[in-house]
């Protein structure tokens, strides 16, 4: 490619793009389904938001880690279910399937975990599919809490005799 051709390339490409743009605008103006030049309202874009999902270790309901002294228990079920049954010392953080845990609640939770000097955070939920405990565990782990586990089968499995 000679220097003359090289210097000609960019203006020529710009001219071709401009001609194509004019053709596009003309066709768009003439066609019944043409787009307005500027969208008046934002497009409804349906893209699932990336979920903050961290690492969680699954535990069986009879796992010795549940009997370890330095653990912080979180019950991810609703208040009513928590009142009916919960592991001793568990705090109730109902998992919301639609909205993430508010940052202020997460900070409070992190403070409580730190104050308890726990080395492991254990979450249990309704044991369903999907399991609220596993999801809450992934959420808080993805947002900064470390050494998070969840109980497979959740509260029903713990109630069925697996509870420590």
């Amino acid at each position, binding site marked *: 490619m000679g220097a003359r051709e090289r210097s000609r390339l960019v203006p020529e490409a710009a001219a071709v793009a401009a*001609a194509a743009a004019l053709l*596009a*605008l003309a066709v768009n103006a003439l066609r019944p389904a043409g*787009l307005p030049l*500027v969208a008046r309202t934002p497009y409804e*874009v349906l*893209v699932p938001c*990336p979920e903050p999902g961290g690492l969680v270790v699954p535990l069986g309901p009879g796992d010795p880690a549940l009997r370890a002294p330095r653990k912080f228990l979180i019950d991810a079920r609703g208040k009513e279910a928590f009142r009916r049954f919960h592991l001793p010392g568990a705090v109730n953080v109902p998992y919301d399937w639609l909205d993430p845990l508010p940052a202020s609640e997460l900070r409070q939770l992190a403070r409580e975990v730190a104050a308890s000097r726990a080395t492991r955070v254990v979450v249990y939920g309704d044991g369903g599919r999907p399991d609220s405990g596993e999801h809450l565990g992934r959420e808080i782990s993805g947002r900064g809490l470390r050494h998070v586990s969840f109980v497979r089968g959740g509260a029903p499995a713990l109630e069925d005799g697996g509870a420590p």
Partner: protein
Amino acid sequence: MSPSDVAARMAVPARWYLGALFVWASAHKIASPHDFAVDVATYGILPLALVNPVAIVLPWVELVAGLMLLAGLRVRTAALLVAAMMATFLAALLLALGRGLDMSCGCFASRGAEHDPISWLTVVRDALWFALAVLVLAGDRGALALDRLIERRSARCAT
């Protein structure tokens, strides 16, 4: 055979392939500008005011560049346009992947994220197409091209 001879030989099928690809890619975008505008908006890169102009103009630039490559008309100019578009698409893809968006690339027919999700494979594919465009840009010598026919005609007229 020198490397430039190899590049010149590969440039012909490469430009036909890229030409057909760009004509094909432009077809659904021209037929369904609204769907393509949604694809452009999904990337979340452009301000709303620029979504429609890009959705209207870009497919026609793709079509014109594709037809020029197929016909062999101003091949290097068309290859430069294709390379510039591929570089832009790559940057948009990398931004979308970096932001963790689970979406369709919108490169061809809009099939939704479930059937045509962006991934690192999409990036590799686009990088290969970018490399092909550069190959055509650097290696084309006008073989089997309308440009050569026009040159011969004008030379004959001049003598």
